[in-house]
């Protein structure tokens, strides 16, 4: 054993920042780890390069049209997909935040301890359901119900800008958004639950000691202290929503049209790529790859914002 010949103090052996072990300790696993690291860098590099290079002709020939154009086939226009992605994920986010915030607060503060774990587990199990199941559920269960009850209900409220329930056929921006909302709910609830559980107990006790009611503790102390982290949770959920493919493809109708009437079909980047790929010629593929790059940029941006929020929340709590 080579390690026996070198006397490394026990406390120093795993010291962080001590990245260079003495030569005698450098053994096969160092090389395995290095190889894994290089492989990882290589694979990710190749991945990005291949996607960008496949779409390169589109960026050279019609960089503007792919972002602002609305047709598909001559020049390729991605505006309907980009707008559709933003529409569905933002509507989904609004629904998920309203429902999820209430759920997370109830789990942490309101329901009895015995129910707490069960509810939290159920919410997290929702995340484990494959998205195809959500898609089929949206198409076969939610869509008929919405056609029969929800669209007419919204109609009766006079929300004509959404479209008319008489013309609606089922697949729609609204349907896809609601399915998405259910899908991103678990991630939003579980992160929000953690963020609000991390609000220090002594702040809660301080509020109570000043005569705050339980509701005031939640609204005036817990939520303000956790708000940055809740923003982070929302953006993480948003990132998940922008990239969701199959459930949206099944429920949105997938037509290449900028759709402002939410009762009617539209499309998103991810669902458009998935459905159009089958019959795509080489030019189509370049355009689809370009859409893929746009989606990657959106998702990456949203994820980065989410990380920034969560890092800031950590800093806030570290100062408390």
């Amino acid at each position: 054993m080579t390690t026996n010949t070198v006397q490394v103090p026990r406390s120093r052996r795993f010291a962080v920042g001590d990245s260079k072990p003495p030569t005698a300790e450098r053994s096969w696993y160092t090389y395995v780890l290095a190889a894994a690291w290089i492989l990882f860098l290589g694979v990710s590099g190749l991945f990005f390069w291949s996607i960008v290079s496949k779409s390169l002709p589109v960026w050279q020939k019609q960089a503007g049209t792919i972002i602002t154009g609305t047709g598909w086939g001559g020049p390729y226009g991605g505006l309907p997909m980009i707008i559709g992605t933003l529409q569905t994920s933002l509507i989904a986010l609004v629904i998920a935040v309203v429902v999820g915030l209430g759920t997370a607060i109830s789990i942490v503060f309101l329901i009895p301890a015995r129910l707490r774990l069960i509810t939290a587990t159920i919410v997290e199990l929702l995340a484990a359901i494959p998205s195809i199941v959500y898609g089929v559920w949206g198409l076969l269960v939610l869509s008929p119900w919405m056609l029969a009850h929800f669209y007419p209900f919204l109609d009766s409220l006079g929300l004509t800008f959404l479209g008319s329930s008489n013309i609606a056929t089922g697949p729609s921006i609204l349907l896809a958004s609601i399915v998405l909302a259910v899908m991103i709910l678990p991630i939003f609830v579980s992160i929000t639950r953690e963020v609000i559980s991390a609000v220090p107990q002594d702040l809660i006790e301080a509020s109570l000691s000043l005569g705050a009611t339980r509701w005031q503790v939640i609204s005036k102390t817990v939520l303000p202290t956790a708000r940055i982290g809740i923003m982070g949770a929302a953006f993480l959920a948003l990132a998940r929503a922008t990239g969701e493919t199959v459930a949206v493809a099944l429920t949105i109708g997938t037509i290449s049209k900028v759709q402002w009437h939410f009762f009617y079909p539209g499309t998103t980047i991810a669902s458009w790529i998935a459905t159009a790929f089958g019959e795509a010629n080489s030019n189509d593929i370049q355009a689809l790859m370009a859409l893929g790059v746009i989606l990657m940029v959106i998702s990456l941006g949203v994820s980065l914002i989410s990380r920034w929020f969560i890092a800031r929340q950590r800093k806030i709590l570290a100062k408390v």
Partner: protein
Amino acid sequence: MTDDLTTKTTTTASSSGVKVAMQLKDVAVSFNGRTAVRDATFDVAANRVTSMIGPSGSGKTTLLRALNRLHDLTPGAKVTGKILLEGVDIYGPDLTVTELRTRVGMVFQRPNPFPTMSIYENAVSGLRFNGIKKKSLLDEAAEESLRAAALWESVENRLNVAASNLSGGEQQRLCIARALALKPEVLLMDEPTSALDPIATLRIEELMSTLKQQVTIIIVTHNMQQASRISDDCAFLLMGEDRAGELIEFNTTEKIFNSPIDSRTLDYTLGRFG
């Protein structure tokens, strides 16, 4: 149990003609059936500083938290016996828990101003919780309480900066101001200087001696010198054989430190254990 009580040496401040702020009668706190502290019977004299001392595990903080019903939050916690605030049972129907907590304020071990609020908002947070919105009232209370906590001079020009910009000692004084803004009758302090440096500690101690003119103070401390310096009355608690804390002796601080009746009190104040 009754034997214990009869041998217990407690004096009631009321006998010496001093006004009583709070009375504890055979108070015990248990968690899920396990007793954490028991047999606490003593009177807290108004406008004096009463300290609770004892080694860790003797239940002093547990007892303190019973006095503003903070144990209400803990599932399985049970408080028995009687705790009276100016003669009214604080666990009874004549006093709501929120009203009790505005009359019995609390300062915690770690300075814990609200991190998302400014100095001003922290100072008036208790008033806001209680529905006071009028700007002039809030301004007045903020100045008055910050002055009372000896903080006004140093923060007067930066009332709107975040409370986290203050030093630890200033944060703790802000927490005291926050509690004082509600004009409580009693102020509970749970080892308020244990997270502070000696100079900040000294300033809080000086503050307490002036504050007792307007508010009755009950302080838990593990620092015997502190208890002897600042308190007028003193309760000594100790963990019994079944790991439950109990009140051993209550008397004026002078008597507890100079001529205690129980030999265990003497041993502890002389530093023989703990």
